[in-house]
Every structure is written in C-alpha cells, then in structure tokens.
C-alpha cells in the first residue's frame, strides 16, 4: 500500500485492536446488522434469565406444611407454574437418590456414592497412574459392594431388587466403562490382527452389537438370556443389564480406538519392530499411548453418551436415578411437579458429565504437550 513505513523494532498493537471494548466492537457491533442481532439476542437472553430467576427463586416455594394426610401441596398448585415447587425435592430427594433402599439404611448408598466420587478423583490425578491404582479400584469397588449388599460386618442384607437411584447409575456407568474400555482396546487391536480367526471374531462382534439398539440388547439380556442358562441358574438382573451395557459400549469404543490406531503412521510400527520390541511392548509403549491420546475427544464423547444411556435400564425395571425421579412424582400429592424433579435429576447428570468433559480437555492439552513446539 505505502512504502513510507520504516520498520523500527517491535511496536505495541494499536489500541483499537485489543481490550474488551475492541473485542465487542469487532465481534458484536461491526455493522448495523450485527448490532441489531446483538441487541435482539441480548434482549431475549436477559428476558429468559429474568423469568427463570422469577420461577426458580423469587416465586418458588421451598417447603410445604404436612399433616396426617401427608404433605399439603395446595400452595404449590396455586402458583400455576409461576414459581418452582422445590418442596418436592426436599420431600422426595431421598427416594430419588436411593430408590427403595431401606430408609434407615440410606447412609450406605450415600457412602457408596461418596466412595465412587473419591475413586474418580483419585483416578483423575495423573501421578497416581501406576499399577497400584488397580488395587485401589478393586478395594473401593469391594467396599461399595459390601456397603450395598451388606450381610457381613453387622450390616443387614439388602437384596439388589431394592437398590435404586444414583448408586445404580454410578454402578452401571463405572463398571460399564471400566470393563468396556479395556475390552474395546482388545477388540480394536483384534480387528487389525494378522490372525484371521481373531479378526473375524472382532469384526462380527462390533458389527452385530452396533447393528441393534441398546434397548433391544437390554431386553434380550433380561428376557432371553435366562432361557439359555442351565436350569436353576440365575444371574441377577442388574448384572445382566451391566453385561449388556459393557458389550454395547465396548463395540462403540472399539471403533473409536480403531480410528486412533489407523491414524498412526506406519513408520511408528516399523521403528518399534526394527528395535526388536515384542508385540505387546510395541502396543503398550508406542502404539496405544499415541493412538489413545489422539482419540480423547471422541472417547470422552462416547463415555458421556453412555453415562446417560444407563438410564435406559428403566425399560427392564431397574431403578436408576432417572426412573427413581419419575417414580417419586407418581404419588398423588406430588403429581404435576415433573419439571422440578427433572431439573434436579438433570443437574446431577450435568455435574458428572461436565466434570468428565472439563477433565478430558485438560488431559488432552496435558498429554499432547509434545505436539507443541
């Protein structure tokens, strides 16, 4: 444009290019159309936020009186939806969280949930990623099993049919992913195996499982599977659902992992071979560490999907968090307060899923440090 500018060392960028005002100017108010859209959206957003605050806080009813006939929810009904009736949560949260587990024993599933969260936190810390972590998992899961079932250490026995709510969701998700993930790695490796029998087996597994909806798999697990078992043998319903979820998640995760394996240049395999590494050394030290890092985003996407899909077990009569929530408002006094219950249950799902998503982003940045210059 002009050749009069004489380079004279580094300069600060012009004032108009940095700072929040500059950002707003270029991104929100760059022309009359953009300004109009910004104003319209801003108006809508503020209006929505205000009416939500009205509903959730200003007009909300936090508790209702109770008499011999049970809770008196007339005050809530009089609101006609103008405000939330959080009383339903206060009244029913124990049922939503723990289902039909004996009321006076609720501390046991509560402690189990805390143990799960502790387990997640420990597993998330990278300096703990050593083989001893497997022992921690075994110990924790055993402790959770003892808490839930009881029958030892003076804890009363609680049959699995009475478990419900959040522990069920966490059990299905945790065991599901803890078993499905290693399974998926083996299947993904198997699909690339040079042994035709293994390869065919893995392809069949993935294609068969991916070809049917999870719901039909769950039905099969609960209705058909017992028919194949020898007379008198009975696997509990939760375990059957758990196996169905593991198999289903395994097939999906295997395809994600395979994507990572395929993205790895052939030279990496060759260099490892040329150094004399064995198949498992090559796979464990060179291939998987690189392949898995590449697929962290789709992997976590699948994890999150399956965390929520555990709620499908409701169709075979297992009481997970969402089903317990639905059941809580069957009682006549609380009928019609579904929104509050779903907001509550949704918030719990959101906390877990958001934590996964947030953690994975950090992990991805951390593990891919070597890509940065």
């Amino acid at each position: 444009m002009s050749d009069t500018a004489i380079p004279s060392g580094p300069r600060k960028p012009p004032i108009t290019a940095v700072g929040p005002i500059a950002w707003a100017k270029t991104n929100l108010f760059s022309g009359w159309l953009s300004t109009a859209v910004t104003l319209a959206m801003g108006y809508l957003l503020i209006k929505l936020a205000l009416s939500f605050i009205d509903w959730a806080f200003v007009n909300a009813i936090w508790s209702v009186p109770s008499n011999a006939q049970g809770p008196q929810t007339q005050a809530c009904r009089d609101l006609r939806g103008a405000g939330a009736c959080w009383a339903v949560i206060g009244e029913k949260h124990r049922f939503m969280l723990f289902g039909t587990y004996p009321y006076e024993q609720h501390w046991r599933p509560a402690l189990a949930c805390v143990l799960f969260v502790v387990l997640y936190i420990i597993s998330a810390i990278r300096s703990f990623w050593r083989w001893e972590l497997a022992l921690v998992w075994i110990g924790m899961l055993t402790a959770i099993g003892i808490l839930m079932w009881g029958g030892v250490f003076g804890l009363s026995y609680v049959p699995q049919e009475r478990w419900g709510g959040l522990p069920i969701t966490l059990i299905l998700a945790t065991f599901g992913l803890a078993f499905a993930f290693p399974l998926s790695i083996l299947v993904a490796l198997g699909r690339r195996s040079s042994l035709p029998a293994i390869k065919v087996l893995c392809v069949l597994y993935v294609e068969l499982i991916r070809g049917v909806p999870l719901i039909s798999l769950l039905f099969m697990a609960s209705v058909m599977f017992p028919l194949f078992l020898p007379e008198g043998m009975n696997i509990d319903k939760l375990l059957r659902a758990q196996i169905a979820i593991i198999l289903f998640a395994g097939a999906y995760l295997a395809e994600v992992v395979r994507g990572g394996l395929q993205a790895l240049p052939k030279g990496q395999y060759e260099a490892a071979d040329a150094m004399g590494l064995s198949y498992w050394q090559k796979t464990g030290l060179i291939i998987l560490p690189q392949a898995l890092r590449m697929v962290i985003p789709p992997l976590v996407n699948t994890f999150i999907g399956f965390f929520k899909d555990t709620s499908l077990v409701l169709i075979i009569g297992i009481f997970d968090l969402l089903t317990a929530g639905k059941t809580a408002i069957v009682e006549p006094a609380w009928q019609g307060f579904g929104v509050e219950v779903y907001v509550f249950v949704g918030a719990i799902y959101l906390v877990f899923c958001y934590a996964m998503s947030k953690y994975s982003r950090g992990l991805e940045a951390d593990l891919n440090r070597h890509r940065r210059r």
Partner: protein
Amino acid sequence: MSATATAEQIASAARADAPPAIELAGVNKWFGALHVLRDVNLAVAPGERVVVCGPSGSGKSTMIRCINRLEIHQEGRIAVEGIELTDDVRALDAIRREVGMVFQSFNLFPHLTVLENCTLAPIWVRRTPKKEAEELAMELLARVKIPEQALKYPGQLSGGQQQRVAIARALCMRPKIMLFDEPTSALDPEMIKEVLDVMVELAGTGMTMMVVTHEMGFARQVADRVVFMDQGEVVEVGTPDQVFNAPKTDRLKLFLSQILRGH
C-alpha cells in the same frame, strides 16, 4: 592415498575369511504380481560399508527391509551374523537386536523425549538397567552432537537433529550392523551435511553399514563397495571407483548421467 588403499585391501582380504555379516542368496520377493527382488545375491563382510544406489522403484528399500524382516522374502536365503531369517521368532528377535535401522522419515516416537526414545529399546529389549541405559544414551547423543536436546520432544527439533537422534537411538542397542534407508532424502540441503558427518564418523569406528543413498560424495568417501540395483536386480557391484568411473552396463551409465544432471 595408495598406501591406505593397500591397507584397506589387506583388511578386506582378512575379513573375507570370517562369516559374512549379511548374506543374501537367491533372494526373490513379490508384491502381489510385482516381482521386486529378482535373484539377489550379496554378501557383506563384518566391518564392511556398502552403499546401495539405483533408480526409484528398483527395490533398494525392499532389499534392506528384508534384512531385518520388515518385509518378508518369499524365496532364497537371508542370514545375518550366521543366523538365518525364518519364521522362527527367536531368530528374528536375535537378529533385530543386532541390526539397527535408520529410516528416511526418522520415525522417532513423538510422545517420548529424545532420551526416552534412546533408552526404550535397551531397557525393554536388552533389559539394561535404566541408569546404565541413560548413561549410554547421553554418551551417544554427545557423539551425534546433540546432548543438550535430551529432554526435548522430537517435534521440537529440526529434521537434521531428529535424524541424528534416530541414529543415536539405533546405536543405543549396541548393534553390530546398521542399515540406513535414504537417511538424508527428507532433509533440507543445509542439514544433510550434519547427518552425513555423523555417518562418516560412525564408519570410522568399523561398524558394518549398509546405506541406501544417492549421496555420491558420501559413497566415495566411506564405501568399500557400491551396489547398483535396477528393476529388482543387482546389476553391478564394485568399489566406488569402478562403479562411478568405469560403469560397465548401459543401465548404470544412464543412471549416473541422470544423477549427475540432477545435481
């Protein structure tokens, strides 16, 4: 000059008695219907430096990759240090421990630091204690003149530096034989020399080397013999002088004229 040549000849005469470091006898290989190695016969004596050249697609890479079984030959016999390459896994492991390989595209492990790249195989394959492996790695990184990069990741290095790390990594296994497949072809001109210098120095240590390269200067400087391949055949073998200055076949003459024009 002539004195060293005589000494060299005496040395290679002495080597002739020892079993060859690498021996290919009647080797044939096909990719599908494509006949890529045609009755290849070649013996490399211990301590000998052989440069392989030839036009693109002539089977140079395939031949060198058959020697550590990255490719599998279908006919003939390949033996390394007297061990024949067969389906026997133990023989293959033994051979891969003795043979280091350097690739055109470096193939460093990007998720490991330079030092970890170098210590991985000694620790896992040779079961060398970690500390010892690290000492050896630092020594060899110093020899390829990049000890200060040990804790960086390969992605943070230039191409020339990466290839020197790849050479150090292969040397960390204390191989008896080093294979190079066009080690400088992926490099910018100013980096070629730093890699060749390292290879010349390595040749000075008496390492058995088989190098696929079109660097004629390097071939003249270090090669005991030059092998010219075309269309899967070994067409001519001789000293650099014989091959470059007195080509016997038309195919080699044509190749040399193209190479010279290209440079």
